[in-house]
């Protein structure tokens, strides 16, 4: 109880170390064939060779552009659409069924269709990333507008603030936390889209590399590919957290403000 933070890192790091050592031992002692489970040292070695391999960087470039195009398009379209649907009742009535419908389908189901429409190149993956990410963004922006403080709105209206003024100074700032929640969730969905799209049909990309490595029993490369995705997920969420703090700096620290 004296140093909980210290204890936390000690226990967390200790377990992680034990896990990695056990993994290494299993593989090296021959208890389990390293062909199947690889081992931390082999994965590190595979990583070291891949990092100097231009083909690997080509895969990274392809995956990154799929992720970035799809995710940025989802943000650019999803946030305004969600805000508009939240502000206009009629628009939300018209578009609501479509959003609900798309939300009910795992968007990766549409992958075979997207491949028929866009081919096995980068654009079918961009589309699946976009579809995966846009729905959570729209829904969170929409619910953000809906949960605005009614007191603020009443007050602004009593002082006869214009619609634009109300939107800019009350609705938008109040929605920021919701938008970021949606963006973070959408980042996971986007990454999922990249992986599934590339596992399913692709000619390049880190997901494609993983699938290839699996087919050729190169477990070391496979694990390194998975690790690349893990690192990407962590980095993207950390970046969004920073961005969110930047947007939230003006907000007074209150216990009740969520």
């Amino acid at each position, binding site marked *: 109880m004296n140093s909980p933070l210290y204890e936390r890192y000690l226990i967390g790091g200790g377990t992680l170390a034990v896990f990695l050592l056990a993994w290494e031992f299993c593989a090296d002692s021959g208890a389990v064939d390293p062909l199947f489970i690889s081992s931390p040292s082999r994965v590190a070695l595979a990583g070291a060779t891949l990092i100097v391999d231009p083909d690997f960087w080509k895969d990274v470039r392809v995956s990154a552009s799929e992720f970035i195009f799809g995710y940025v398009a989802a943000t650019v379209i999803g946030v305004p659409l969600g805000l508009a649907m939240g502000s206009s009742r*009629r628009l939300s009535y018209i578009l609501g069924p479509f959003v609900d419908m798309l939300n*009910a*389908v*795992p968007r990766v189901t549409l992958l*075979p269709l997207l491949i*028929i429409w866009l081919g096995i190149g980068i654009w079918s993956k961009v589309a699946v990333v976009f579809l995966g990410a846009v729905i959570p963004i729209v829904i969170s922006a929409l619910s953000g507008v809906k949960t605005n403080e009614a007191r603020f709105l009443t007050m602004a209206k009593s002082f006869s603030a214009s619609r634009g003024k109300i939107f800019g100074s009350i609705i938008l700032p109040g929605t920021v936390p919701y938008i970021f929640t949606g963006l973070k969730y959408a980042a996971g969905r986007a990454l999922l889209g990249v992986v*599934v799209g590339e*596992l399913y049909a692709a000619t390049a990309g880190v997901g494609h590399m993983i699938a290839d490595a699996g087919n050729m029993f190169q477990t070391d490369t496979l694990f390194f590919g998975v690790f690349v*995705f893990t690192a990407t997920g*962590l980095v993207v969420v950390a970046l969004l957290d920073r961005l969110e703090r930047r947007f939230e700096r003006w907000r007074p620290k209150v216990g009740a403000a969520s």
Partner: protein
Amino acid sequence: MAAEGRSGVVTAETRAAAPMRLYLAHERAILGAIGIVLFLVLWEGFERGWWADMLHPLLGPQAMRLAFKPIFFSSPTRIVREAFRMVFVTGEIWKDLGWSSLEFMLGVSFALAIGIPLGLAAGWYRRFSYAVEPFLAALNATPQVAFLPLLVLWMGTGLASRVLIIVLLAVLPIAISALGAVRTVDVRLIRVARSFSAGDWLLFRSIIVPSAVPFLLAGVRLAVGRGMIGIVVGEIYGSAAGIGMMINQAGSRFETDKVFVGVLAIAAAGVALVEVIRCVERRVEVWRPPVGT
């Protein structure tokens, strides 16, 4: 007199506005239906060449681009016909639905059996949570489907690898919500129970579990969605049966109608499952006094 005249005016106004009021009362349903119908007509029109014919005088031969080939976009009537055929005439969809449901049930059951105890234990024992949190965080940041080639390498493309990918996808939301549920239990309740010298087991049964259920169900709802992703991804990656396999096969044969039937079947199953969980949630919540906070 004035009052009479006024009321007369009011009745006239209300009579005139009756359709308007009917519209306002059902605005959501009406606008929603209009949107869907317009979308379906637009879609059907592309496939049947309505728009191409209509715009032909204006655009000339360019207009023919608006007549899509059915193998690309199919059309609502084609999809309905195909669905009817697959469900009632040949019945071929039932076998795939059966396999997919089996995978889903097994996967989600295992995920519950692992996720709930893990999450509750991590929420209750601080040191245990320190030990497992790094793993949970790492797994949570990974798109878990990236493990699929590894699972296939270990277990082949049979049922086991598909069940395992569903477990892998569904276990995290369950474990994380169980962990959060224990952490948010009202401390006052625990203190009261402790003061009356309740043991760990009694505390767990009478305080932790009842207050954790709503959180857990929210986690289960998320897990159901993840499980659906698992079905589809596991089956399109390599499988001999199931809805995902059917979609994959139909896609590679350009049978777009069939692909849409599969997509709709999965959407319907997802909506139905989420509704069932919502029902359970309402059921479970009946005893709880409604509080503002």
